[in-house]
Each structure stands twice: as C-alpha cells, then as structure tokens.
C-alpha cells in the first residue's frame, strides 16, 4: 500500500471493573451489557470505526472469553480486514519469561513491536470504559495543528465534582502547564477523559524510560504523562463537547442507561451517520401484546412484552408477561418477568427468571437492586445494593 493509515489506536480493555459487582463477576467491564443491545466497549469501537481508524489493538487480560467472543474477528465494526484491522493483544512471553500488563503504560510498552510493525506515526490511546460518541479525527487534527507531542481529550465537569477527576491546568492556548490528580481544591474543571494522542516516536522513548523506573506504576496518568510534562514536551488539552459518562459504578451505570430515555441527554443512538455497532443476534422483531403498555422505554429485538413497561431499557429476547410491571429498570437478555410481578429500579441479569406475583425493590426508594443471573427465583425484596 502506498498510503497506510498512520494512526494506530490502542484500546485498554483489561479492566476488571470490580465496582460493578455482579455485572463483572464473570466478565471484563468492557463486555458489560448496555443500552438495550450493546456492550460498553461497542461505543469506543464504533467511534474508532466511524472515525476511519484502520488499525486498532485491544489490550485484554482479565477474563477475556466473553469479550473475545463478542469481538470475534471484528466484523461487526468492520475491522475484519486483511491488512490492519483489529487485533486482540493479550500479554505474552518473550524467551522464558512473561509479563502481565502491570499498568496502562506498561500494556502499551509491551506491544511496541506491534505498533512498530504498523508503521505508526500517531498512537491514540483509548479506554473501553466510557459511553460517548467522539470523532477522533477532530482530536488528531487539533493535535497536528498544535504540532503537539501529546494531546489529551478533556471535558468540562461540574466544579463540585472536579475533585474526583484528573484535572488539567492549561494556559490561554490550552497548553498543559500542570496535572492535578483528584485535587482537593481544583483550580480548573477541565478533566482528562483518558483519551490521549501521542507522536509515536516520543511515546516510545518515554515508555522505555518509564519501564526502567522501578518505582513507577507504569500508568499514563500517574507516571508517564507527568514525566513528559516535566521534561518539557508540548502537551495540549482538546476540549470535547458532548455526552460522556464513566460507567464505573452501579449508580452511574444505571444513570447512563436512563439517559438513553431522555431526548435531551445529548446521546442520540438514532444518528445514521454515527451508528453504534454491536454483534447481532439475528432475532425477529419484538412483539407487543394485545393489552400491553410501553412508555418512555427502549425495547430490543426478540422481546415479548405483554405487561407494562415504563422508563426502562429491555434487552434482546426478554419477556415481560401479562400483568407484570417494570418501572425504571434494566432487563438483560432473555430474562423473564413473570405474571403479576412488579419491579422498580431493578437490574435483572441475563437469563434470570423472576417469579410471578413478587414485588421486588421498594417504590420511590433510591437504591438500585440487582437481580442475579441464573434461573433462581428471588424471594427477598432487595438483592445486592450498590
């Protein structure tokens, strides 16, 4: 090829996401279901496809079976290419010893050969934990215009929440002058989104340097980026406008699902020019019964709704029987809500059969209850709390 795509995306998908509790007991966080038919990683993968990224390496390490099965050969995101395309990059052995990925930067460090083999000029580091739609070309364009060594995507967060984030202090040109990791008294509300674009030759130099530092945790935010700033590299902040949510806790996960039911949330799934792709399950259309009521809800293929569904997200193949009422809940694939049962603010895991005539979770209660996987009947009013 004469023209090769000189951007290589590296998607960090090794996270365990233990704060998502039951949701990540068996699978990696990026593989958690979201939004009626997706998994969390679909958003980042689709952003990459829609941004015309030709090469993407997915760094995995924690319980990857379901994630690997979901990604397959990448054909859903159009990454099943003969040249370039998607490659899953787990840790591996060199000679007789092997290293697990010990940090975000270390994961990239261990795959220097992969990136080199693609003749990369820029490396785009992504994380698979967020729900958002972003055209990475805009970030790259900004990076090139600023002639930067590193550009970090940032988003304005409410001042009162800024203390939770990595805050970037910048000059009038948006050049980064200081990193402020979870500051008690933030001087800025511009938070790092964990999305970085690097000039590859520079990043490679610092990855190697960081690897030699025994005291480093080999993390971008904690080690590599501060080191690069200290050594005088040109680092810029690019400001992203739009919906962005870290779904790291049960609460934020539930909220992000509910955001889909709000036309004004800023996250439009119906935009044909920016499809979110996922693995298709080849299910027939949904059937809405003779006496059912469905309001303010997302219902997916293969569902049978004969009861009442309000303010809820229902995944593929789920069944809501006659007389059952589902309010403010998230029902995963193939779950069955039996006759007469009322659910409020519940998350019902895959394949769960919720027995008839139960009232699960209190009404108007702020807690979110998780109903466990497996065809076990749930007797108690509340299950695990977030």
């Amino acid at each position: 090829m004469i023209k090769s795509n000189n951007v290589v995306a590296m998607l960090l998908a090794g996270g365990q996401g233990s704060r998502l509790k039951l949701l990540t007991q068996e699978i990696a966080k990026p593989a958690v279901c979201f939004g009626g038919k997706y998994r969390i990683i679909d958003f980042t993968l689709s952003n990459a496809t829609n941004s015309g990224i030709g090469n993407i390496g997915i760094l995995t390490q924690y319980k990857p079976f379901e994630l690997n099965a979901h990604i397959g050969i990448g054909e859903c995101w159009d990454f099943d290419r003969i040249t370039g395309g998607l490659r899953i990059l787990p840790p591996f052995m060199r000679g007789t010893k092997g290293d697990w990925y010990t940090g975000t930067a270390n994961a990239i460090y261990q795959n220097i050969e992969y990136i080199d083999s693609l003749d990369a000029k820029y490396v785009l580091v992504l994380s698979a934990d967020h729900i958002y739609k972003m055209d990475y070309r805009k970030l790259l364009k900004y990076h090139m215009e600023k002639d930067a060594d590193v550009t970090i995507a940032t988003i304005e967060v409410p001042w009162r929440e800024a203390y939770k984030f990595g805050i970037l202090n910048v000059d009038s040109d948006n050049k980064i002058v200081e990193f402020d990791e979870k500051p008690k008294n933030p001087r800025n509300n511009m938070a790092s989104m964990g999305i970085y674009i690097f000039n590859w030759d520079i990043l490679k130099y610092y990855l190697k340097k960081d690897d030699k530092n025994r005291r480093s945790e080999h993390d971008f935010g904690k080690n590599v980026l501060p080191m690069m700033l200290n050594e005088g590299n040109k680092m810029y902040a690019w400001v992203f406008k739009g919906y962005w949510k870290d779904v790291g806790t049960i609460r934020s996960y539930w909220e992000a699902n509910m955001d889909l039911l709000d036309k004004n949330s800023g996250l439009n799934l119906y935009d044909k020019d920016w499809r979110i792709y996922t693995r298709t399950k080849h299910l027939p259309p949904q059937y809405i019964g003779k006496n059912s009521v469905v309001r303010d809800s997302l219902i997916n293929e293969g569902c049978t709704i004969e009861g009442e569904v309000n303010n809820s997200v229902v995944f593929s193949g789920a069944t809501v029987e006659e007389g059952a009422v589902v309010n403010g809940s998230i029902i995963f694939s193939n779950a069955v809500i039996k006759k007469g049962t009322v659910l409020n603010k519940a998350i019902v895991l895959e394949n769960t059969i919720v027995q008839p005539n139960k009232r699960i979770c209190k009404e108007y209660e702020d807690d979110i209850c998780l109903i466990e996987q497996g065809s076990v009947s749930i007797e108690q009013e509340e299950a695990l709390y977030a």
Partner: protein
Amino acid sequence: MLEECLGVISFEDIGNEFGVLCRNKPVYMLPFAGRYRLVDFTLSNMINHGLHTIAVFTGSKIRSILNHLGDGKPWDLNRKTRGLSIFPPLFDDVKRRSCDIYQYHTTEEFFVGSKAKYVFIANPNILSKVNLTEVFEYFLDTGADITVVYKKQNNGKDEYINADTLIIDDSGRFVNIGINLGSKPVFNLFMHMILIKKEVFLEIIRAGMETGENIYFKQAVANYKNMYNINSYEFKGHVEYIRGIKSYYNANMNLLNKEIFNELFLEGGTVLTRSEDEPSTFYDTKSRVRNSLIANGCIIEGRVENSILFREVKIGKDAEVKNSILMQGAVIKENAVLINTILEKYVTVEEGINIIGIEGNPYTV
C-alpha cells in the same frame, strides 16, 4: 451428511402479481416480518441444516439480490472454496432466461465440478421450516433418486388457486404435477422442494436440453418419472406461499399469531439476515402499541394496532396505524391515519392525511 449436498435457490417468474412492490426486485426480495427478505428463510434453512455450498439463480432483476447477499458474510457464506455462487442469467439468451433447465444447463460446470453427490432445489417464494435433515434421511433411507416435498392443504377451494398440486399414489410415489383449480378443498401443495441425486439431476438437465421438450425442471421430472425412483415427503408444519399482494399481506399478518411466529422464528434454527445496526425501538410517553410486530430502530409516539413495522419507522404523535405493513423508513406524521395499507420503503404520510384500504384487500402505497 447434508454437507454432501448442493443447495440451489431458483424460482419461477410469477409475473406482475405484486404491482409496484416488485417493480425493481424479484418476489423473493420482498421485505418480510419487519426485517427480513423472503429469500432469507430458504437460505437460512439450508445453512442451518448444514448445506455449505449454495447457488442462487437470480433471475433478471439482479441488483437488489447482489446488494442483499453481497459478500455473504451474514450467512457465513464468504468461504474460499464453498459458500455462495450467484448466477445471473446469460444476457445473450433473453428469451430462454426464465426457464430453469436452461439456467442449470449453462452452469453445468458448477454442478459437475463440485464434490457434492446430491442437489437440493428450493423456491424462495415459499416459506417454511422444513426439517431438511429429516428429508435427507428419508431420501437416503428410501433409496430414492428424487424426493419431492409437499404439504396437505385443506383450503384449496379458496386459496392456492393455480398452485402446483402434487399427485401421488397410495405409497407416496410420484405420479404427476397438476394445478389446483379449486374443485376440491383438500389437495397436496407441491412445495417446490426437490432433493435429487446429482447424477440424476445432470441426466435430466441434459435430456431436457437435448429433446427440447422441457423448459422447467419440474416438467422434466414428471416426464421422466418412469426412469427414476421418485417419492414424496409430507411436511406438516406451517407454509406461506407468496403469490400476490394478498398472500403477501396475509403471510405478514399471520405472524401476529404466536404459534406461527414461534414456528417460523424460534424453532428449527435462526433466520439470518443482513443487520443494519439500528438501536432499540423507542416508545414515547404517549405511544399505544397493541398486537404488533415492531422491528428495531423505530420511534413511536402514536398508536399502532395489528400491524408490522419494519426498521426505522417513525410514528408521530396522535397518529394512528391499524392492520398495516410499514416498510423500512416509513414516516407517519402527526395525526395521520393509516388503515389496511402496505406502505413502501421511505414513504412519508404527511400530517393529518388519512389512507384507508379495504379490509382483506390492502391498499399499496
């Protein structure tokens, strides 16, 4: 075992029974059940029963099927040595193009070159979930040269006029293929499925071409019936034979019957089709949907009853849709009313407009 069998999808041209619906596409490319094309059923059934090499004889309206099948990926038919072969007619022989014997003849190399020992021919305009594995076992167990599949129907007086009737003797042996003229309610509908030894298939094609006596393969089978051991397999499940707008409309509406829906979709293997990656369907606060099949990607703000909505349909506030089929991307604006109607792809019904067809005889827009 069905790996040793070639699948052939081939149809008889049934003319212009479909009006505008088939202006640019063959009947087997009609949208069905919210997200499928008719041909998906035959294709998926073959794949689900282990047929790996499938030839599609497209007929003369080629573009839509090329676009739909494309690289064959959704059916996992993008294989190196087996997979999908698409045979458009040869342009040089426009006159003879609708005759299947001639089409098979011009692709003889494909059949001869394959290692398969058997050929299974099906018509994509007839939907069913025939258990091909069972048919194949029956074919092998009975030592037949040819097995044809039929369904005993008991509404031959009202429906299926002019449909092919399979005439068999008491032992199920093939006697002839006739036409149902509606004189008797009960008749054996020939389902246009033929399982045949490849060598016999080739013999019949060659004899058909040489004698010039046959232009359709089914005719040839009937003509040479004394030369071969031809028996029949009775299918007892649900069949939809799409022969015109009315049967097309009814076949869609029948899906609101749960038993039929389950038989076609949930039993006997998944029906595969090309995904268009729509999000889930959104039901707004004031939507009222009853007894309907809704594909993904719709946004519903109004009322829908006894209807089939294809992908990306939009129903505006206080709009009413009843007993209708709305194809992909159709838009019903606020306060519009649509009853007993088939709405074509991407058609918009403007605010306040009423379109009302006659019950049992849907209006097509």
